[in-house]
């Protein structure tokens, strides 16, 4: 808004007796107020409730629930599980993040084919998918707990190191890497703050705020979606859901956030 407009409106408000309580605040301060106003009443709760019901519902060819799924802390333990993911799992002999682990459990416990389990990774307008709801529920059960990802198994070490390489990988017509936007302190794209994911404090805050309800889309978005859409905007080809590169990159980012308190599902622009 031009300065003149602001003055006119301030005058109008003053005339109307609605006193401007403060001096005009900066754009960044106003965005902070916007976010704070949304914090109370996060529609992600609707997904969490749906996810909890889905977790307990008997589904698939084996007509079984997911309740015996081992998310990393033993079969059936949901509380805190998200804080240790991604993690190496012996039964599948690979490192899995939450979404890929859910796919594995849908296959092993419920009898879905891998294709069926991966078919609808993300919701959209008028399309609710089980994956988003399960992710919302499971992460909400770790809310307030500290991230604690370990790289003790050689495959965990490898995933972390490969993930680091992917983070710095520049490609596509625009030469973008993850690091292009997330490699320096105190930067913004348009008005959005960009966390420096090379720095512990930023990585903690950023990673631990996903998944999130995105108001611009009206959907709960998982971390797999976060990477998928970042790569789209990097002008890369389409990232395959729960692909090895996505899990490696997640391992790198998740471990860098260790010690950060999970504040998810959160609400974001």
């Amino acid at each position, binding site marked *: 808004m031009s300065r003149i407009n602001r003055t006119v409106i301030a005058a109008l408000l003053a005339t109307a007796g609605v006193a401007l309580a403060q001096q005009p605040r900066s754009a960044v301060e106003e965005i902070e107020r916007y976010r704070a106003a949304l914090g109370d009443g996060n529609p992600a709760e609707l997904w969490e409730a749906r996810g909890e019901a889905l977790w307990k519902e008997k589904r698939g060819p084996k007509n079984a629930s997911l309740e015996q799924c081992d998310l990393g802390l033993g079969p059936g333990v949901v509380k805190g599980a998200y804080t240790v993911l991604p993690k190496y799992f012996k039964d599948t002999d690979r490192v899995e993040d939450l979404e890929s682990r859910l796919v594995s459990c849908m296959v092993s416990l419920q009898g879905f084919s891998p294709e069926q389990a991966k078919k609808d990774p993300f919701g959209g307008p008028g399309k609710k998918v089980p994956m988003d709801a399960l992710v919302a529920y499971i992460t909400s059960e770790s809310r307030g707990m500290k991230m604690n990802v370990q790289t003790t198994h050689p495959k965990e070490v*490898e995933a972390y*190191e490969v993930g*680091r390489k992917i983070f710095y990988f520049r490609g596509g*017509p625009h030469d973008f890497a993850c690091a292009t936007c997330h490699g320096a302190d105190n930067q913004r*794209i*348009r008005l959005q703050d960009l966390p420096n994911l090379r720095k512990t404090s930023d990585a903690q805050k950023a990673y631990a705020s996903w998944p999130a309800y995105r108001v611009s889309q009206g959907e709960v978005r998982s971390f797999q979606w976060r990477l998928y859409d970042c*790569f789209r905007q990097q002008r890369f080809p*389409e990232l395959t859901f729960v*692909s*090895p590169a996505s899990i490696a990159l997640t391992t790198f980012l998740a471990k860098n956030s260790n010690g950060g308190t999970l504040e998810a599902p959160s609400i974001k622009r």
Partner: protein
Amino acid sequence: MKNNITIVVLGIASAVAVGCASMSHNDEAALGAKALELMKASFHEQGQAKLDRLDQDEVQKVCSEYNGDRKIPKDVADRLEKAELATIKYPADGKYVGDWKNGERIAQSGVGMQFTDTAGAATGGNCYACHELTKAELAFGTIGPSLYNFGKTRGYTPEVQKYAFGKVYNSEAFSACSNMPRFGHKGILSEQQIKDVVALLMDPSSPVNK
């Protein structure tokens, strides 16, 4: 290949075991190869975005290695800048400055070349994503420096016009491993579009210089 991976993993494991933060060049190269292999298997082509977007050119390869705490050595930077400078195709008519109003539209628009975009459709430069340009637009990014008053402070000279054209055409020619896309070299913006963006920066009547 399988043997190679095992060796890489062992290399990493030992590096971690001794609490070593930096790895040898060989380990990094092997990891890079592994990462590329994994990426090729983890992305699929969609729309205009084919898998060859993962094939890095020299700038992308070198700048992926020199990142974060590893600063690019001066001789490597000089070599890159020289090679990139040679790619710039300056306008045959010698005119660098187009229409700033169109330049403003290009600076605002971030569409183009994503797998969700229509191939061949006009693309934007998305300058505001990273740069402050005018006082009217509050939603500007700070990845790049403020370009407000670009022409006013530098002077509306042909030399600055030419520099601005070249910088937008191929930023790597002036600053190796810059975060800024090579808009001309990579065919993101046409010559005319770059002229229009130059006008936004260099036209005395552009809001950038108000």
